[in-house]
């Protein structure tokens, strides 16, 4: 055998071995990590078919069966037509979550998009300052935001009611009056939505600013030369061109709205009269306060289906086939 060929083969064999070792050393930990994640998801998937509580020992295999019996689709049937307190709370929570998400998304867009446009049109020196100011609430802890707004909403000592009193109005128990409402939504839900919007709007605003900065200036200038007003240029040029960003913002805002938890737990804990009880809060209470893990897993699956469905719908409606 030719010596050079032999050396080449050894060298290639050594490289292949090194590659295999590298792939194995990288893949195995990843597989282990992924398998844990998959196990948790699989466990939740299995649990939703059982009346499972960690307080009960149950059967021999992972505590399933026995005093944690298999109920098949029983949890889902109960959600639809049951009269139990869990079923009632689930339906209320689902309705409240939908209200929250449907109200938050357009309000968020109505605030963040014009604000981003305005910020884009001011001088560079003030742009950074305002951007920082508007983004600060995003960096604040949700619990801190909730406590601040609770203080402002306090019926006796909050400054919102103080202003109302100063103008001779009737103060409102913003977070605790189940009778007060507007447009068939309780005033407590509006109060929570306002606090949530205040904390969240800076995030979308920054994304919109980045998108607006990415639009070629010539397009806007051409429109203005052709006689379009700034408003028309915004509507007819800017908005269509940031449609992919709009899709991203819509999907992300909708997702985070469906997952709202901490701000509501601190501000109202679902009250008054369950008017702000949302799905994640209900799932949390079912699982960890009332140990009803099977039910909580079934609720989580329903939430997953809803979020997936809504996201798919948004992507179909708003996707574009072009780039600039």
């Amino acid at each position: 055998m030719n010596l050079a060929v032999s050396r080449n083969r050894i060298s290639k064999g050594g490289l292949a071995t090194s590659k295999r070792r590298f792939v194995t050393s990288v893949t195995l930990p990843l597989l282990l990590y992924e398998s844990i994640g998959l196990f948790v998801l699989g466990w939740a998937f299995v649990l939703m078919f059982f009346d499972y509580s960690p307080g009960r020992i149950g059967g021999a295999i992972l505590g399933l069966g026995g005093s944690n019996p298999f109920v098949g689709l029983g949890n889902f049937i109960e959600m639809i037509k049951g009269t139990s307190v869990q079923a009632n709370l689930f339906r209320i929570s689902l309705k409240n979550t939908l209200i929250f998400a449907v109200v938050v998304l357009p309000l968020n867009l109505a605030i963040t998009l014009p604000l981003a446009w305005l910020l884009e049109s001011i001088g560079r020196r003030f742009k950074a300052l305002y951007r920082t100011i508007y983004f600060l609430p995003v960096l604040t802890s949700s619990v801190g935001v909730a406590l601040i707004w609770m203080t402002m909403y306090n019926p006796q000592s909050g400054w919102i009611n103080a202003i109302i009193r100063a103008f001779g109005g009737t103060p409102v128990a913003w977070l605790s009056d189940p009778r007060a409402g507007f447009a068939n939504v309780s005033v407590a839900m509006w109060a929570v939505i306002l606090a949530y919007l205040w904390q969240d709007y800076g995030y979308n605003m920054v994304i919109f600013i980045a998108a607006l900065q990415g639009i070629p200036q010539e397009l806007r200038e051409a429109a203005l030369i052709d006689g379009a007003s700034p408003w028309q240029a915004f509507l007819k040029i800017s908005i269509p061109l940031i449609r992919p960003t709009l899709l991203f913002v819509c999907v992300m805002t909708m997702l985070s709205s469906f997952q709202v938890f901490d701000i509501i737990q601190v501000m109202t804990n679902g009250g008054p009269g369950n008017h702000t009880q949302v799905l994640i809060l209900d799932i949390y209470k079912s699982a960890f306060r009332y140990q009803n893990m099977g039910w909580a897993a079934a609720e989580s699956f329903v939430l997953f289906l809803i979020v997936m469905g809504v996201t798919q719908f948004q992507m179909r409606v708003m996707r574009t086939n072009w780039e600039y």
Partner: protein
Amino acid sequence: MKHKILTLMLVLIFVLTACGGGTPTATVPEGVAPAATTAPESGEPAVLRMWVHTNNAFIAGYEPIIAAYEADHPNVDIQLENFDYELYLQTLQTAMPAGEEADILQLFGTWTSQYYERLAPVPAEVMTIEQAKQTFYVAPIGGFIVNDVLYGMPQEFNMEYGGVLVNKTKYEAAGLTYPPQWETMEDVLADALKLVKKDESGMMTTAGFHFTSADPTWASFLAGIKQRGGDYWNADQTGFTFNTPEAKAQVQWMLDAVNAGVVDPIVFNDETNFVIDAFFQGMVGIGYIGTWAIAEGQANFPDFTDEWDYFYLPAIQGDPVFVADSGWGLTVSPNSKNQDIAWDFIKFVTTDPANATQWNIASGTIPALPAVAESAEVAAAMPWIPKALDSLPFGQYMGNMPDRDLVMYEIIYPHILNVLQGVETVDQALEAIDTEANSTFE
């Protein structure tokens, strides 16, 4: 071949992961005393972990008792670990199925019916049920007995019924007789009306009688049913009977009190102006809450300068019959390798009069031991306890419910609060309470 190896590895990983979260490795069948424990090797200390929920007053009560026990037993090391209340619940629920819980577990007695499958029964040589009933008040020991098996020993008589904080400063400012001379609940309402204050817009700024938090609401609801001669259990305790004339009369009484103006439940409830916070900020004349609130209020509001004291309400009618939870107590994990030491320690904490006295005074709780409750030492440290002594024998255990918290906090309280806030009628609320509470048995 590579695919097969990879598949095998994946299956192995799944199986190993699954085994990690499996059932406990050792359980003790109901009614059977645990086997003799593994005695620590000579010279090696027996280390026992003890889990409690975070309550600084409670922890301050445990620490000297643990130190005293360790001094008596140099070979024993008890490590106290505490968790915030919500985190404690989650930790119990995840650790117990994995068999990773501590040796000694602080448990609210009423929870025992939910956890008993994962708890060790009290060995007969440590204490029998009969001995337990003779040692402790009926209400606190009741929750630790499930299916005629004793699972723990109580430390406190959790009396949510009947106790009220009274603001002396406000009483005197309103020209009322202090201490209050209440013969009937109508006397209480009469005083409360004179303590109410509103601002110029009509919003209540001082509640005369704040009884609209969750615990006072369910406690007075259940006691009201009992005092009127009714019951909320069916004959064999397999279901609830909440839609009764006695229940209706009690909710109507509460609604009448609200309509009379002693409290505005819109701005004084469990979430807004919770009774402890509101009382110790000077926004309540008479605040309905258990004695446990005293230590918490004093700790959280050290600058509160009003004078106040703790009193007990008269019965709505007849004897002051009431129902109570089994309060906090101690249990043992069936997975503990030192169960005999754990039970010996628990007996030391709960039945030794000196230790029980020390813990109850430190935690500000009503003793579960009658002898301690009646002691001069407790009376001197907690002057409100002697006032409760006449009522304590009337306390009954509320009964083992499938999910006590769900019934109290998600069914009874929200519906009654709805009635008081004017968004549900009495009949609607009782029908809903009855249906929803009975669904917890399914």
